[in-house]
């Protein structure tokens, strides 16, 4: 399709200063980095939950200090000599791991309050950031908070920096939520002292150096196995009058048995004279202070982490919402094209279908041309020799400098006129051609487009219906060699045979293409002619024709063959102009979109602007879900989308009677070409938003489409 300079050569706008490219690139980089940061934060939050007491087998433990191996469950390695502590007799330190959980922790707190018992909650930082109020409630009700890492990893398998991050960040978020800087730490996957082995020693010493007491347990209820309340009670009940640190869980699964057991265990042991206290209370008077006030720095760091996770949560929710919208739009479009477009094709191909009496009125064909010497000769010849009575061809030479007019004159075709005009752009050239046209049926064809002999005749047949004001032809790619040519061929076939049929059914064809379109002169007049304030003058005109009350229809049997861009740069320029022009036209006619006149126009906005803008999310979230969230369903979803694309492509090719061979490139098209189109669209949207003026740009022509393909 042709593009034309819309400005005089001497009035070309200066290119954006190169010195601004670096800041712009940095802005894009920072915005992308912020997005990636949010995604990474979200990806790091889900806790890798494996039951704490999962058996690890017998391992060497000779490096574990003997006093620790056989000592009490509260291990103090902060001083020069290791020390351990046990709960005093008739004292139970209930401990709950892996929370806080908004479903189960409040119920456990209610039971504890009911029985006036206190406990210690070893929390995960990743859960605290999303449950700060619940964390605060724990301490407000007299319980104690300990650290159980941020994401519940097996700490000994992590590098030192990550171990430090896990502990310090969790302490910070606890400090932010409660105002206390807990120094109690329980490593994930721990149980009793005799389960410690040599691999735990380094981590134990590091936590000691950080000033933390490691709290293991005397009794492991193994409630995560859900063995029943009776078993949990039996496992959590100490022998005789012995004190004990009891391990339970308030998150990580269904904790109803834990709650039921707790509700019976506490009164039973209270009747035996037991007290239920926090770990700190078991140390009172004989061990270090374990629950000091938080420092300002800790609180600020915790606040920053909570805020970051909050922002990341909102960002990801927004992305999921947009992805959902994109998915719904994609599914809706797929269903609609498969149902309505196929119905449209079948309806038009039934023997009884007719637009009305044959239209044999003479036709004026306008060919605007700017430097089209390479392509215009076969184009004009194909038009002049059209099998329709009374065809006149008017070539508007828009100040070409390559002898375009002479090339046309050299064809010596009796029904072809050349009118040379000063440079004014394609819309002006078409207006001029309309002024010179003798006939009331006006066909507009690009100078790089070759039509089939009967294309013009078929194109004007819908004018038998007096309500029809404009007709879109079926434009096909003539140079479909190479990947780029095949991808554009696929895109054209789908666009014309599915999307146009869909929009025809909905009564809202947005564009009668400049490559091949017919208009009733009255409709052109009613639409106010072609305007110069958008770069997609064909879309602008088509919507104006709609708004003037005329029907715009698609005639698939009127075929023309156009030359598609052969290089990425050329393609980018063309699509950049198309998408920008389409946005201009839709914005210009936004009232028509909002009022729904023509009624289907909002679908055009949804499917041609909104869906392509959101579609990159499908690919981004697929990669994110598969790689960072370990969600295989993300890949399945993407493959399902690919399958749907393939089905629609096959249907489009069948409707157009095209061999399906080029479809082998469809997967590659989805991976590379589609992304390129997204970038073009985003570029166009940014250009529109910033108010920059986009100019016409001449595409390089090869002239390889000389005759319609067989």
């Amino acid at each position, binding site marked *: 399709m042709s593009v034309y300079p819309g400005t005089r050569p001497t009035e070309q706008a200066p290119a954006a200063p190169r010195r601004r490219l670096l800041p712009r690139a940095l802005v894009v980089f920072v915005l992308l980095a912020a997005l990636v940061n949010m995604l990474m934060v979200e990806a790091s939050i889900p806790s890798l939950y494996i039951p704490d007491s999962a058996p690890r087998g017998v391992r060497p433990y000779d490096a574990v200090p003997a006093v620790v191996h056989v000592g009490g469950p509260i291990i103090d390695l902060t001083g020069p000599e290791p020390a351990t502590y046990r709960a005093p007799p008739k004292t139970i330190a209930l401990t709950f791991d892996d929370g806080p959980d908004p479903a189960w922790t409040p119920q456990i707190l209610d039971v504890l309050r009911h029985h006036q018992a206190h406990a210690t909650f070893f929390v995960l930082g990743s859960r605290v950031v999303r449950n700060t109020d619940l964390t605060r409630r724990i301490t407000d009700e007299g319980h104690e908070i300990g650290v159980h890492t941020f994401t519940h990893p097996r700490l000994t398998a992590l590098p030192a920096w990550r171990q430090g991050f896990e502990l310090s960040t969790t302490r910070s978020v606890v400090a932010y939520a409660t105002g206390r800087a807990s120094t109690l730490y329980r490593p994930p996957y721990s149980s009793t002292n005799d389960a410690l082995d040599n691999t735990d020693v380094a981590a134990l010493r590091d936590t000691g150096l950080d000033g933390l007491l490691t709290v293991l347990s005397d009794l492991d209820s193994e409630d995560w196995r859900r063995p029943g309340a009776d078993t949990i009670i039996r496992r959590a009940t100490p022998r005789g009058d012995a004190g004990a640190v009891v391990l339970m869980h308030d998150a990580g699964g269904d904790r109803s048995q834990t709650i039921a057991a707790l509700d019976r265990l506490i009164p039973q042991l209270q009747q035996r004279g037991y007290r239920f206290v926090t770990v700190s209370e078991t140390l009172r008077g004989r061990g270090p202070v374990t629950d000091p006030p938080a420092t300002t720095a800790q609180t600020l760091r915790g606040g920053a982490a909570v805020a970051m996770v909050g922002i990341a949560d909102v960002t990801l929710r927004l992305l999921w919402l947009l992805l959902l919208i994109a998915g719904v739009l994609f599914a809706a479009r797929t269903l609609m094209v498969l149902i309505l477009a196929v119905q449209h094709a079948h309806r038009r191909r039934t023997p009884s279908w007719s637009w009305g009496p044959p239209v044999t009125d003479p036709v004026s064909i306008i060919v605007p041309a700017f430097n089209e010497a390479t392509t215009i000769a076969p184009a004009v010849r194909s038009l002049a020799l059209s099998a329709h009575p009374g065809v006149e061809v008017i070539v508007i030479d828009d100040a070409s400098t390559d002898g375009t007019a002479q090339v046309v004159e050299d064809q010596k075709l009796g029904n072809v006129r050349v009118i040379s005009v000063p440079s004014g752009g394609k819309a002006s050239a078409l207006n001029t051609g309309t002024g010179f046209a003798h006939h009331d049926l006006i066909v507009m064809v690009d100078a790089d487009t070759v039509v089939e002999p009967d294309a013009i005749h078929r194109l004007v047949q819908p004018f038998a219906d007096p309500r029809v004001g404009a007709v879109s032809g079926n434009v096909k790619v003539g140079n479909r060699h190479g990947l780029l040519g095949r991808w554009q061929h696929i895109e054209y076939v789908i666009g014309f045979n599915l999307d146009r049929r869909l929009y025809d059914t909905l009564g809202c064809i947005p564009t009668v293409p400049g490559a091949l379109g017919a208009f009733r002169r009255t409709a052109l007049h009613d639409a106010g002619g072609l305007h110069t304030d958008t770069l997609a003058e064909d879309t602008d005109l088509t919507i104006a024709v709609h708004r003037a009350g005329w029907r715009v229809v698609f005639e698939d049997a009127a075929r023309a063959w156009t030359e598609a861009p052969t290089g990425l740069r050329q393609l980018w320029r063309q699509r950049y102009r198309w998408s920008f022009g389409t946005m201009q036209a839709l914005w210009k006619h936004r009232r028509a979109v909002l009022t729904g006149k023509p009624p289907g126009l909002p679908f055009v906005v949804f499917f041609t602007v909104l869906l392509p803008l959101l579609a990159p999310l499908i690919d981004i979230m697929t990669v994110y879900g598969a790689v960072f969230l370990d969600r295989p369903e993300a890949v399945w979803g993407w493959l399902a989308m690919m399958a749907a694309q393939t089905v629609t492509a096959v249907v489009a090719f069948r409707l157009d009677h095209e061999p399906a061979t080029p479809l082998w490139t469809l997967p590659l098209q989805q991976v590379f070409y589609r992304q390129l189109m997204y970038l073009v669209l985003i570029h166009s949207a940014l250009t529109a938003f910033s*108010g920059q003026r986009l100019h016409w740009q001449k595409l390089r022509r090869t002239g390889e489409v000389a005759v319609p393909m067989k």
Partner: protein
Amino acid sequence: MEPYGTCAYTRPPPSVDGMGRRSGRRTPRAVGRVAGRVHTGRVAARVPPLENARTDIAPLGELPPPVFADPGGTRHRRLRRLSYTVAITLFVLLLAFWFSQLGDGILG
């Protein structure tokens, strides 16, 4: 496109025709094919065929500016400043956040 436009128009019949002959004293003749029965009045002037008519540029005055165009560049400047401000703020905040979170873990 630039805010100007052009269109071709046919000039009114000149007092001297394109061949330099005076046309006012001669009886004008209709030019072109006449089909069917047409009742016409006295021919007032001789009009050259449309395709041979002299054409000229008719300035159409001020055309609407391109959609989205921001001729003064105010919107562009504001957007640029805003994007720079947002980018710098984001960069500083991200740097400060990760330094505060990882710094304590790594250094402390």
